[in-house]
């Protein structure tokens, strides 16, 4: 049984759109934004895996494995930063952190 590539791509794009929507809309909470980023990354990995299956080449699968390692590292760093930010301002609302205003 094989899933056509187009279906995989449609699911991946929907996931990516939902992840993006989550990041843009849920900015009151950094953690929810991070979850949105994870969803987008998952959509990307799904695309890789789908492509890999479609063409029968292992490269895409390898790349998604690498992405998993990268994501775990990123998440651990990001969560540490969330803890740090929370200590500074007692909030996780990103709109409160606007010291980069130009």
């Amino acid at each position, binding site marked *: 049984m094989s899933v056509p590539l187009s279906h995989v791509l449609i699911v991946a794009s929907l996931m990516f759109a939902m992840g*993006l929507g989550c*990041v*843009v809309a849920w*900015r009151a909470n950094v953690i929810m*934004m991070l979850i949105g980023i994870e969803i987008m990354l998952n959509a990307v990995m799904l695309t890789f895996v789908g492509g890999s299956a479609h063409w029968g080449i292992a490269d895409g699968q390898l790349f998604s494995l690498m992405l998993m390692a990268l994501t775990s590292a990123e998440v651990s760093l990001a969560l540490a930063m969330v803890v740090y930010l929370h200590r500074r301002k007692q909030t996780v609302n*990103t*709109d409160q*952190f*606007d*010291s*980069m*205003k*130009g």
Partner: protein
Amino acid sequence: MLPIYLTFMLLLPLLGGLTCAVAGRKLPRALVEVLACATVWGSFACAVLAAAAYTGPQVITLADWFASFDLAIPISLYLDPLSLSMVVMIGFVCGLIHVYSVFYMRDDEDYARYFALLNLFVFAMLTLVLGETLPLLYLGWEGVGFCSYLLIGFWYSDPNNADAGRKAFITTRIGDVALMIALAWLFQLFGTLSITKANGMGFLMPGSVITMLGILFLIAAMGKSAQMPLMVWLPDAMAGPTPVSAMIHAATMVTAGVYLLARLLPLIGSSHAALAAISVTGGLTAFYGATCALAQRDLKRVLAYSTISQIGYMMLGVGAGAVTAATFHLLVHAFFKALLFLGAGCVIAAMHHEQDIYKMGGLRRSLPVTFWSFLTGAACLAGIPLTGGFFSKDSILLAVWLKGGVLYQALYLLGLLTALITAFYSFRLMFLVFGGGNGHVHRSSGLTVMQVVLIPLAILGLFGGLLDLPSYLGGGYLSGFFATLPVTDLPTGSHEQEIVLQVVAGIVALLGLLVAYFRYGKGRAERMREAQAQPSGLFAFLAQGWYFDKLYHLVLIRPYQACAGFLSERVDRGVIDASVDGLSAGVGGVGRLFGRWSTGKVAVYLISFAAGGALILCYLAWLAL
């Protein structure tokens, strides 16, 4: 030995000037004064030694300056009767002026600058006179202009003095431009800048080219020698210290133009038009200066206009081809004009720096030495018979008369009229300054020495005629000495002619003296009353120098200022500055506009990022479809 003398003649004032300029402030005052005087007198001694060792015209090359392709300019000096007589005169007169300056500038704090400039002035003038190549002459020419600029504006804290210095510099610069063009053209024509070579090559060129060259050199001389129409700077140059005026008027600076023309006469003398232009310039300027001197109230301004007038005579002489007569007058004039200026310095010092001749009087008894010296100087200036000025001025008039032709005879009559006016204003000055009631003077120990300096000059002025007696009295030393110069093919008159002309000149001078006596000697009280009133009509016209300053102000300076104002307001600030300002304001505005985008809020960046991604996707989609 000659090269050594000449080298030291030039180097001594240069070294003195540089030492004063570099270390003058650190050295004790007495040392600076002694150094400045000693170097000039040393230079004079070298000039005398050179004169003793002189055998004939000689080009002495001291060193190579630069040589590339066909342009070769060595540092070479030319010693001939003309330059030799000039350097001896310059050394002597400048030496006396230096000694005089020591006492005149006794209370001035800035002695180091003063003596440094004075020494450099002498060096520049000697370079000008001795230079065999025109660029060397030009260096001296510019050096003289530069030093005079700094010395005229010596008391620069008064803006009037600084303006006078600038006026002198800018006006003479107009002439310098003509000289520069003439030099470039001369090189293009002859392929050489050596004066002696160029002088011998005049016949190679068509007459019109020579005429144009002559006119260019004449314009150069007009600037430096304060001839019409570039004479406006000289009366204002009185702003400098009095010894500086004496130096500018007598030995250096203003004689440079006459010297240049006399030096190049073999080249430009073949053009009758150029000679006529020189003569007419000289004749008119002589008349102009004399008439203006009639109405001046400032002692030094009278002398300044008299210089313009006398230099006019010299130009007239050069224009008539009489280099000997012109140089003769130049030398004698240097003595008596230095005498008059230094005498005026004594008077001014004794009168608490009062320069209005109507406020003076009675100095005959209180300053006897100055009186007698000044009388000698005035007699020379007026051309009273048997003084040096009489013989020298008369030899010029004689040469002009003998040249013949309507133009030169008219110029002779103009010269004679000028001589009458000259005699009149010289003695007007004498009667006003020294005649009349008793004057109160301020004595100082310096004044005594300053008066002593006048005596040798008075003797030289009085007996200057012996340098070149007319031929019916056995002929002159100078004429014989100058006989080696390339241009001496002048018509010589018979003895009777000479005597008649000299008698006429003598009568004219005595007539002027007589009129001055009746008007300012006997009618002194009346003139004093008149002087209270505001000058009007012809008197004001003359007092203002024929309104030449106003004319130039109207014709040149006002349009120039209007043009500069327009360019500054409208073009520079209105267009150039405004466009640059507008550009920067525009860039800044755009930057501020985009700057508002970076709010620092992560969400805005994210949305922008997403929107950018969406745009790229749309573009790709559009491409694919």
